[in-house]
């Protein structure tokens, strides 16, 4: 995927410091020396190419009713992987679900209003997918040290020396 230096500069700014203003793309353009129209065109292009999923408020799960969350690992027979992943995906509380290259090959997260609801979802997934408890790891969060999904888009050459 080719990202030119202006794309990278724009992505970095839109990710780290999006201006909450009625005309945000004009403000971004002023900061980057780019017309508003070009900001919108470049972002639209990045969005069409799938680099940007969307521009939105990222909510703190604890503030929107999520009190419990866990990570679950399962050992799933290879030939049943897509079937089981499909069952897991059906649940609204499941936000991430990945195949990983390990003995435990399916990893997903469940978030719920409370422990009881969370365990209910997990038990239902296990029952429906017929994965025995010996092949399941339930790994609830004890403590969060960091949750900050931001990336560096500027390479050393076009970096303006700013830390983030």
């Amino acid at each position, binding site marked *: 995927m080719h990202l030119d230096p202006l794309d990278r500069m724009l992505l970095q700014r839109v990710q780290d410091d999006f201006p909450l203003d009625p005309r945000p793309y004009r403000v971004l353009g002023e900061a980057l020396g780019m017309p508003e129209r070009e900001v919108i065109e470049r972002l639209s292009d990045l969005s069409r190419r799938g*680099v940007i999923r969307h521009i939105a408020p990222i909510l703190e799960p604890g503030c929107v009713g999520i009190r419990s969350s866990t990570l679950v690992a399962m050992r799933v027979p290879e030939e049943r992987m897509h079937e089981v992943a499909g069952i897991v995906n059906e649940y609204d509380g499941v936000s991430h679900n990945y195949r990983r290259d390990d003995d435990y090959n399916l990893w997903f997260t469940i978030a719920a209003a409370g422990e009881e609801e969370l365990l209910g979802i997990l038990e239902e997934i296990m029952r429906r997918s017929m994965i025995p408890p010996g092949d399941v790891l339930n790994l609830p969060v004890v403590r969060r040290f960091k949750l900050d999904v931001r990336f560096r888009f500027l390479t050393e050459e076009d970096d303006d020396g700013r830390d983030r």
Partner: protein
Amino acid sequence: MDEIDKEILWSTQDGIGLEERPFLHAARRLRISEEEVVARLRRLGQNGVVRRFGTRINPRKADLMANAVVVWNVPGTRVAEIGAAMAESPDVTHCYERRTIPGRWEYNLYTVLHCRDKEDALRRVAALSRATGVADYRVLFSTEEFKRRPSGRIEPAKEPGRVQ
């Protein structure tokens, strides 16, 4: 958070438009000004409901091809110190302590890294291992994404009098 705040989050959480006045739609729907929409979003950021406002990126499309969950077996007395140290690393997007399953799964600290490729990821993981002295770890690369969506979402208001 009042009902108007909730409506604003509900109508922006899936992404604002790439147009000159992206908050106009929400403002009209709620019969408030765009200035009030952004002022409320700013306030929701200050009080922690909105962790940040900005882009959600698809790392693979931004040339970050490797997504690794690294599970670490950290001595109980050192979890706080090492968790904080790993959280400091800009390579780490998530860092959590999780419950262990004694006898089956002793890993208690979890980090997520998004890197250019596997080699880059393994180099960074090795550096974290050296810096913290934790030698017992496993790197789990994702090989297929089944689901990925924001974990904190707000549900639409249910009352019949909702402004359409």
